[in-house]
């Protein structure tokens, strides 16, 4: 876009001819625009899309049969099963937490509210390895509760509970962080009206709050699930890497890769990449169809 400052006001002839040559730029010249666009496109292709393409290419490098037999391996199937179980539990727990946190933070004003919001963010700024380590320090053989657990023959670390605990830690903020700003934006008028008209707390929640939150909730669940299924660092520390028992899909990828079973590693990785693409696609669809009912897109 170019604005010719000479256009709106007629000036004396001499000045006009001098000024008409001065064009005011509020964008870059065409070569600069092309160069920057080309750089951005090149970077996107080389840095973001090429890794994704290499996953697909290497997964199918040895043909479809190898790909399918890699996925049909019993250890891989068991890893897929464990990943789904862990994600189901972690997402369900974090939905309950996210709704409870959003209800008290977005609907009430109380002391320590800001501190609570900051605390919910903590897992995002802590290394996933720490999320796994704290479970070992608490429940490991030489951890605080280790001897007690051993007396009762209970296993947390190197078993399902530890993997769930570590996954919940790293995925805890996803649902809450979507619901809190969304509920704050929506305001409490509808719920206050429902209560004033005689609805009970649960009726208000189920018939007013939840319908207003459904797309935001789905959005949070999508992101939470993607992270839960793809989490590596936290789970790696607590899992113990027992093949066919405590390996999740990302850990199975690691084991196969380190065993030089490159095609098999990329075959499992391709499933996780597909999960990422489906998540991104669903996220875009939600942002497009329900923009006004999501915290992420509401303000645009």
């Amino acid at each position: 876009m170019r604005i010719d400052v000479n256009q709106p006001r007629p000036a004396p002839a001499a000045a006009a001819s001098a000024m008409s040559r001065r064009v005011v730029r509020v964008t870059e010249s065409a070569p600069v625009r092309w160069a920057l666009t080309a750089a951005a496109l090149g970077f996107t292709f080389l840095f973001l899309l090429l890794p994704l393409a290499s996953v697909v290419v290497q997964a199918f490098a040895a043909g479809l049969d190898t790909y399918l037999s890699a996925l049909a391996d019993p250890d891989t199937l068991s890893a897929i099963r464990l990943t789904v179980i862990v994600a189901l539990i972690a997402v369900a727990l974090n939905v309950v937490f996210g709704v409870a946190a959003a209800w008290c933070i977005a609907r009430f004003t109380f002391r320590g509210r800001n501190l609570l919001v900051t605390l919910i963010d903590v897992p995002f700024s802590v290394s996933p390895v720490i999320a796994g380590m704290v479970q070992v320090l608490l429940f490991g053989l030489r951890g605080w509760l280790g001897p007690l657990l051993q007396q009762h023959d209970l296993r947390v670390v190197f078993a399902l509970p530890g993997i769930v605990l570590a996954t919940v830690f790293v995925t805890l903020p996803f649902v809450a962080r979507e619901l809190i700003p969304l509920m704050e934006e929506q305001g409490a008028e509808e719920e206050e009206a429902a209560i004033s008209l005689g609805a009970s707390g649960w009726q208000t929640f189920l018939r007013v709050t939840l319908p207003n939150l459904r797309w935001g909730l789905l959005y949070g669940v999508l992101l939470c699930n993607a992270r839960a299924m793809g989490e590596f660092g936290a789970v790696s520390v607590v899992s113990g890497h027992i093949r066919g028992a405590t390996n999740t899909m990302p850990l199975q990828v690691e084991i196969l890769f380190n065993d030089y079973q490159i095609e098999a590693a990329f075959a499992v990785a391709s499933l996780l990449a597909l999960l990422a693409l489906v998540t991104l696609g669903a996220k875009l669809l939600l942002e497009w169809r329900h923009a006004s009912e999501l915290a992420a897109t509401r303000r645009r």
Partner: protein
Amino acid sequence: MTQAGWISGWRKPSVLPGFGPALGTTLAYLSLFVIIPLGAMVLTTFAHGWADFVGAVLQPRVLAAFRVTLLCAFGAAALCALFGLLLAWVLVRYPFPGHRLVDAAVDLPFALPTAVAGIALTSLYAPNGWIGALLAPLGIQVAFTPLGILVALTFVGLPFVVRTVQPVLQDLEREQEEASAILGATRLQTFTRVIMPALAPALLTGFAMALARGLGEYGSVIFIAGNKPMVSEIVPLLIVIELEQFNYAGAAAIGTLMLAVAFVLLFAINRLQRWTRLQHAD
């Protein structure tokens, strides 16, 4: 229900029910899953006093790991700021075909599990990989060197910068740029003196977020780093190694130091976000 009543109490009155159970659930959940576990780590660290903590952290291998991690995370955050600004700029200002695809691709590092990113980047940048084979004749080796850590951390940190700068750039008023141009500034002057100051808080926020993510990142790094002690070993990996050797106190000490750094960054990011909001709250 007066103002004075709210000040003497700790909660503003509301007609809505359920505050107690909701807050109780939230606090219990946070305590169980985050606060108590992190507390246990700090307790393990200081169970035998400061001397053990200092001793555990001041070992040459630990210091080397912190040096590599900090350098790579800072370098990667700087690269993220540079390329993130470029991507955000092009996405907001220049319409081009494939615009939506590029916008969606920016979220890829958020969505792609870190282990997948790790093995994909490793195979790309390995000496016989698609990119590594092109760099090898130039004498540049990326995979299995600290340069590989830089690449992996730039990959995972990039969306933070784009997604913090993009909305600010979208809301930027073009009138200021027009005024600057009409007053005789060249486009470059307008960019450095009008646009950049307005973007600075968001850009710094994105930088700090990418830095925080980079310091703790594990999955995408360990495949490409080569993990040579003192050279390309990152702090999170050192924690894993200490845990495998049942050195809980040593691992906890390193973790506590990382946690302290993470909290400093979290605080900085909060302040930066407040600054961004203030600058754009007209």
